[in-house]
């Protein structure tokens, strides 16, 4: 992570907002049913902050993460990412923001099985102007960051779950985004592997001031973050 936000920000210093949600609602409509997935969510995540989102299944955690990650648009309310109002962004601008300012880590890794580790990590860089050589160097640096340089030519099927998640983290950080969104990153891992992954995320947050929003079911992991947002039936309860 060598972005302008790379210098650690002291925790007690006032910081600018990375994410701001104001009265955000998300309603899914079909011909017959209207489902309120999120209701009146207000959230302010500062740059360099590491927060967790908790809640039972169906409470709207992933929907909230999708909205923050500009993968979806809210039904009402406003979302600002690094000060830019999402409602005013075209699809192309949203794609660029996802590419340059946001990194995603998924529970099921979402690696492309037909690409080897380094090619998987390079993937976000394909959608911005960079040469093949630059891409390779950046991907190797990201893999070094997660301690996986020895497995660069391996395919996902040849890796353990923890290694796959480390590849996914390398892919998320390869483009130096300021914000990392992790959707249950340890959900498919045993406790030891989960601990390793959590360590990497903490390190990214502390050493490089990455803003991290992590969805988790694990209370212990949530306690390791700066604060926890709790959702229930689409509503923010804390």
């Amino acid at each position, binding site marked *: 992570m060598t972005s302008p936000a790379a210098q650690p920000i002291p925790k007690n210093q006032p910081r600018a907002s990375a994410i701001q949600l104001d009265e955000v609602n998300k309603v899914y409509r079909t011909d017959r049913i209207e489902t309120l997935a999120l209701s009146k969510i207000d959230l302010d995540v500062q740059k360099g902050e590491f927060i967790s989102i908790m809640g039972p299944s169906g409470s709207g955690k992933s929907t909230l993460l999708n909205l923050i990650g500009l993968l979806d648009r809210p039904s009402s309310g406003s979302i600002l990412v690094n000060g830019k109002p999402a409602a005013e962004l075209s699809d192309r601008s949203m794609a660029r923001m996802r590419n340059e300012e946001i990194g995603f880590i998924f529970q*099921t890794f979402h690696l492309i099985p037909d*690409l080897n580790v380094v090619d998987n990590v390079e993937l976000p860089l394909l*959608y911005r102007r960079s040469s093949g050589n630059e891409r390779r160097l950046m991907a190797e640096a990201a893999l070094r960051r997660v301690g996986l340089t020895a497995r660069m030519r391996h395919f996902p099927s040849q890796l353990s779950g923890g290694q796959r998640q480390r590849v996914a983290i390398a892919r998320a950080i390869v483009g130096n985004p300021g914000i990392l969104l992790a959707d249950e990153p340890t959900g498919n891992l045993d406790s030891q592997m989960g601990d390793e992954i959590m360590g990497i995320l903490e390190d990214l947050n502390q050493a490089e001031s990455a803003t991290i929003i992590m969805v988790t079911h694990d209370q212990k992991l949530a306690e390791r973050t700066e604060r926890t947002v709790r959702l229930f039936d689409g509503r923010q309860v804390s």
Partner: protein
Amino acid sequence: MIRHVMRIVWNRKRSTALMMTELLISFLVLCTVLSIGAYYLDNWRQPLGFDYEDVWSLSAFYPVANRNDPVERAALLATSRQVMNSIRSHSEVVVASPTANVPYSGGSNNWGTFLPDGTMARYLWSEVRPEIKEVYGLEVVEGRWLEDGDESLADLPIVITRSMGRMFFGEESPLGKIIPRLDETGAPREAEKYYHVQRVVGVVEIFRKSGELAQEPHAAFVARSLDDPERGRAPGGYVVRVEPGTTAAFEEQLISSLQQIAPEWSFEVEPVATMRSRSLRNSMMPLVIGATVAAFLILMVGMGLVGILWQNVTQRTQELGLRRALGATSGAVQGQILGELLALTTLAVGLGSLLFLQVPLLHFLDFVPGRIFFGGTFAALLLIYPFVLICGLYPSWLAMRVQPAQALQYE
């Protein structure tokens, strides 16, 4: 990005084998259809070498008891001379000549001999009167045309087409040369009773008896004797140049005048232009049927390709959603699908070209010039890419519409 696309295609070679096969079949069908089309187009563009407007074909059918009986042969020749004179006597007739090789007619008279390498050389053998040059509007490009009296010379003067000259003598001028008479071992044949040495006296550019769509035959003209029973036979056909505007009524008039001279003979008259229309119609029919079948085949292959691509996009929903999440625009996702399709097409085209061009390289269809195959392959190359892009439009449009939030939900 190109390297990434090629890598994906290569790494998925097993799962894309079916699509690759579809593309290979499409390309080979296109190569075949276009090469056949190029072959006939190339033939069509060659000059005919003769004029068929205001030229009529007259067929004579006569009873023969014993073809080798000199008395009967002499009698038939005498009647043929009268028939010839009668044809010429009509004011509507400009000029006429006997010939066994009437353009666009089904039958032909050929001569064959072996070449030094043991292959058989065949050429149209037209025994004619010198006037046929005027009937057809033939142009002599080298040497001279046939003359009265040529038929009696010891070395039979022969006028050949340029391609026939090349077949026997390469790039040398054939004038004054004798058409070799060899056996299958390439050795000169022993003297034959009725054989006369054929000495080339002239060259015409081309004479495509079977018309525009057929390949050029090698052809030779020699003077026919209607006087000498030893060297002449009663002709079975004539070509007649009539005055422009001569109506079909003259056909009846001509036949009845000939019937008076030879009551036991029967005659048929037909304008060569009519024979040409019929011949073209008959030649085009299998081509049209073949082209229709090929078009349906390509349509089927195209629909199959759309189906496979559709399935491919459906199976890759999660990957496409991931690409969108990582920053790909919907256009980039469409570009990914079409790019992979074009990469696969390039592989199929490369393999298909290698296979298809073996036909000319291994001389499988030697009568078709190699440039036809290369031209057909090139044209197929130009067509296959727009074809697969059209097939890929709908599946790639579906890929564009993949919503990342939904796609990434599926486990």
